[in-house]
């Protein structure tokens, strides 16, 4: 634990070495994600509703997804850039240190630029909450925090697919990004606006619905499922389970790497 907090502190310190550049990049990210937010807002003023969801509700979902994805990219940089890491042969250095490999990978890099996108997401969430006249309670706050954590694990798990592929193939396969970046874009809207196949995909395969949409719908008082409140605290655990599964698979990749040394 001491090692992990120390590593994070040091990564922030590294980032602070180039303060002006970092600030510019945060602003750039803010503008880019802000552009997406504007596009969604424009669509919502035109169409008023998506499926049975009102504009403010959609905005809330959008904001949760943007901030969660931004946090995942911020702290998951070690995983998202893992294929380059392996290609440069830097993975060997991690094998030579007495710490769990995945922990080292996760704490090897940060991407503080994503603070810009995170801010946009938060603005969307707060604006939507105000429009919905949402009554914040401790329980809702806790559930939302769990949603963010569960979804971050799910997204990290999805990024780990490409990380695992990189052990077997030097060329990164763009196709595996379908579920990460594609998942973000598709699942900034609740799954029930989609036809059957996509709904199954994002509920049971890459369980964005369980991690994010179901509990969020409960937070904004429009539950998608007829579940008691405590059950919404359980569904984001699907993200943790997905992550745990990907960790197992990633370690198979590690074993392959150590037997072939690509």
């Amino acid at each position, binding site marked *: 634990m001491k090692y992990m907090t120390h590593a994070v502190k040091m990564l922030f*310190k*590294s980032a602070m070495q180039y303060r002006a550049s970092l600030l510019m990049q945060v602003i750039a990210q803010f503008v880019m994600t802000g552009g997406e937010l504007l596009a969604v807002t424009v669509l919502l003023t035109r169409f008023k509703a998506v499926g049975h969801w009102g504009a403010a509700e959609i905005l809330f979902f959008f904001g949760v997804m943007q901030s969660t994805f931004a946090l995942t990219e911020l702290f998951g940089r070690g995983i998202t850039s893992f294929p380059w890491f392996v290609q440069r042969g830097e993975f*060997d*250095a991690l*094998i*030579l*240190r007495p710490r769990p490999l995945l922990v080292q990978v996760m704490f090897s890099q940060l991407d503080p630029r994503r603070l810009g996108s995170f801010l946009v997401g938060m603005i969307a969430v707060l604006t939507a909450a105000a429009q919905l006249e949402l009554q914040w309670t401790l329980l809702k706050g806790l559930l939302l925090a769990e949603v963010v954590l569960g979804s971050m694990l799910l997204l990290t798990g999805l990024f780990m697919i490409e990380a695992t592929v990189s052990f077997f193939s030097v060329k990164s396969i763009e196709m595996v990004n379908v579920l990460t970046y594609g998942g973000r874009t598709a699942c900034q809207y609740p799954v029930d606006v989609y036809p059957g196949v996509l709904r199954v995909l994002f509920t049971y395969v890459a369980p964005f619905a369980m991690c994010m949409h179901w509990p969020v719908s409960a937070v904004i008082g429009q539950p998608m499922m007829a579940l008691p409140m405590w059950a919404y605290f359980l569904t984001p655990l699907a993200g943790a389970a997905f992550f745990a599964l990907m960790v197992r698979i990633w370690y198979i990749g590690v074993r392959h790497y*150590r*037997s072939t*040394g690509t």
Partner: protein
Amino acid sequence: MAFIEAQSLSKTYTRHNAPKSGGISRLWRREIQQIQALTDASFSIERGELVGLIGPNGAGKSTTVKLLTGILTPTGGECRVNGRTPWENRREHVRHLGAVFGQRTQLWWDVPIRDSFLLLRDIYDIDHAVWQKRLDALVEALELGEFLNAPLRQLSLGQRMRAELCGSLLHAPELLFLDEPTIGLDAVSKLKLRAFLKEENRRNGTTILLTTHDMEDMLALCSRVMVLGRGRLLYDGALDALLRQYDTVHTLRVVFEEAPEIAALPAHVTRDGDAYVLTYEPAKMPTSELLPQVLSAGRVREMTLKEQNVDELIARMYKEMAL
């Protein structure tokens, strides 16, 4: 049992190549090629030895190092380092191991090197007081004092190498791997680095295994060398003996006061200006027997004995071993 014990260690890579012909099926068909990176290498190294690993590029040096450090698992054979199998209990194994791999940094680029050392303290779970004492000693020996607060990216190559060494020795490893430690360093830095490594080996009993193409490194540091070629261990023993084996021709350059009587000398003689150049094989004609004969051939004004340059020797050795 020796500190490092390797028994018929082998490593075969499988490379998948796209076939050169075959039309559209080239997209998914792959030709499988087996590459023998290391074949049947057996050796043992005692604690406190300073061993050099040499061989041309692609000889299997880095494969050997990767197997001993536990980065790779072998396709065959056994290996124990202080009783542990490197690739099995990774974390326990690497806790006692230090490594500096040539150009690749293990420290953090953008923070003062002292911060890197602090993080290494936590990575290796070193008690702060123990760490501080060790750091002070290393900083003094490696003359790093004035750079402790400078980020790694601002250091010169030599300073960086010293910082890397410091980082790799903070946890007082039993075994240190060095890959081309003096590459790109200036003459003074090289000498200092060699002196430091000798001292580290002598004082702390650290076993050091280094790969290098720099024969001066070998001469200065290693009493024992292992020569690898095409994945096989071709020679394992004293460096002196190896050099003697290939150091077959010596050259003696003599300038006489007046014309000498050289016809009787047991050496091949040529002229170079006013000097006589005698080439002979010390194995057949020991220098100690040749010299009195040269001295009695005439009054000698000056004389220089030239051995073959080590690089030439090694090049000859590689050639004779058909590498």
